[in-house]
């Protein structure tokens, strides 16, 4: 399918302008490709509509860890946070935080986003600009991205989770110095992305648990929201759509996120529930994250019913709905088939690549970038 048509459907869905289809994405982690290989390829080729770019044999490339943090062992990012991983093909978790001791704060220096990304990989901004230009020439829309964990998570990656929670609970003043540092880094990065001419910017920051926000809405509004408003506003003012992903329950602050400038939100259906998300129909485009836990443990019938139920409840002729279905390596093949069949029935392809691809920039290469 032409990039132009994909992009048009995406933008129309995002802006409630009667898209021809609901953009849908079935995403497989590298570990899923590694587990199933050719068998998964057969399914993907059967539902080619959802995977217009997939070429036979691609599974060999997609099964490889796209970055050291998807490899077993330890990896230190550009901020000095140490990631540990046990499982090839899944991203690791931060296990060592460089600012557990506040004494190190004064001499701590964040990375320079003009030169490297958060993971320490070199960045060539001229090349990114050329890639965006090329995508536009092909009639497509270009996505920029911040890492998953660009602000709130980065604060606890740097400080340690319990330490940050206690700092926030006690009103520790040094938290504001930390916030200022992460804020400045991200604003610098935002300005660099804005110069490239992107159309959509992807943000990810996990704010919720299964049942609630990690911090109270009041604390969110005190510590996090002002920065979100500032950085999302920069993009919104420049006409760039702001995509925001968070794991866990965020419906309690969805109103705040809209106010901050988010135009496409990616909420998980389990913690946020269809009923509660329905209240926001027509007010913000939802790229609804279907119940990946059900994919893992449910039956094909339950999965089909789930996807039907969510999409029926949230769809509107004007748009405002996208659907995202992520399959981890333990999801049985018959369930993956059920996900693909149902998504193929209810959705069309999306212009947005999955998270792993976004962060490893392979999509730019496959779209004619250099």
């Amino acid at each position: 399918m032409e990039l132009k048509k994909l992009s048009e459907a995406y933008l129309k869905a995002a802006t409630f302008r009667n898209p021809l289809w609901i953009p849908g994405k079935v995403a497989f982690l590298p570990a899923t490709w590694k587990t199933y290989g050719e068998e998964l390829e057969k399914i993907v080729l059967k539902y080619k509509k959802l995977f217009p770019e997939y070429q036979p044999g691609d599974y060999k490339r997609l099964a490889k860890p796209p970055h050291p943090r998807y490899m077993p062992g330890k990896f230190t990012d550009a901020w000095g946070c140490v990631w540990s991983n046990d499982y090839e093909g899944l991203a690791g978790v931060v296990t060592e935080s460089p600012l557990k001791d506040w004494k190190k704060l004064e001499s701590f220096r964040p990375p320079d986003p003009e030169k490297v990304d958060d993971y320490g990989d070199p960045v060539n901004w001229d090349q990114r600009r050329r890639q965006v230009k090329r995508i536009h020439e092909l009639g497509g829309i270009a996505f920029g991205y911040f890492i998953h964990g660009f602000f709130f998570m980065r604060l606890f990656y740097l400080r340690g989770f319990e330490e940050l929670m206690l700092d926030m609970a006690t009103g520790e003043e040094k938290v504001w110095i930390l916030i200022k540092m992460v804020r400045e880094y991200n604003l610098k990065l935002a300005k660099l992305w804005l110069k490239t001419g992107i159309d959509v910017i992807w943000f990810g920051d996990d704010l919720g648990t299964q049942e609630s926000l990690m911090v109270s809405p009041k604390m969110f509004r005190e510590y996090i929201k002002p920065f979100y408003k500032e950085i999302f506003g920069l993009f919104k003012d420049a006409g760039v759509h702001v995509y925001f992903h968070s794991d866990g329950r965020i419906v309690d602050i969805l109103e705040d996120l809209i106010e901050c400038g988010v135009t496409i939100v990616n909420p998980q259906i389990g913690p946020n529930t269809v009923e509660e998300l329905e209240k926001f129909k027509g007010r913000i485009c939802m790229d609804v994250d279907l119940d990946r836990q059900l994919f893992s443990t449910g039956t094909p019938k339950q999965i089909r019913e789930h996807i039907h139920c969510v999409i029926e409840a949230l769809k509107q002729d004007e748009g405002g709905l996208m659907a995202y279905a992520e399959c981890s390596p333990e999801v049985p093949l018959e369930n993956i088939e059920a996900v693909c069949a149902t998504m193929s029935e209810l959705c069309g392809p999306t212009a947005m690549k999955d998270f792993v691809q976004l962060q490893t920039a392979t999509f730019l290469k496959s779209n004619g970038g250099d």
Partner: protein
Amino acid sequence: MRTLDKLREALIEGKVEEVKRYTQQALDEGIPAKTILDQGLVAGMNVVGIRFREGEYFLPEVLLCAKAMHAGLDLLKPLLAGESAQNAGTIVLGTVKGDLHDIGKRIVKAMLEGAGYEVIDLGVDVDTEKFIESVKKHKPLVLGMSALLTTTMRYMKTVIDALQEEGIRDKVKVIVGGAPVNEEFAKSIGADGYAPNAGEAVDLVKHLTAV
């Protein structure tokens, strides 16, 4: 206001230094350590648990209250041993093999300690052998397993099967938790219970261990 009431209130407000002060004051007044623990610290943490369940408290408040509780408990511990007082029982917790996520388990640990249990935390990436060894060594009332990934939660069944094979499954109650886990899954793998959050984990443990 009685010292124990002040202690309880200070704990509910997460005032670490005040908890220390009122614990010491209660000891100076001759109140037995076990009474201070039950009527001050544990009673306070019960309220914290309720507020967490009801959405009044979030993780920062719970962790601060847990810190305050530990500040008081540190003063009581040497005396509790002297009084030969019993804690509510031992619980073994761990995040299963292949999974390095720790946050949820630590909150559960804090709440269980707040309820008067002794918690042995095996950490993350815990394999079957380590769970079995710990159950044999500590003879806990309850073994709690945590997983954040759908990929790793199946290992919980491997551990339960291993407890069975070792002939010790009936010696310990097994509870499971973590984002991808639910009641149905818990039943399907033969666990004794599931709790969706730390507050309910305490209720579940109390229920399972009630004589």
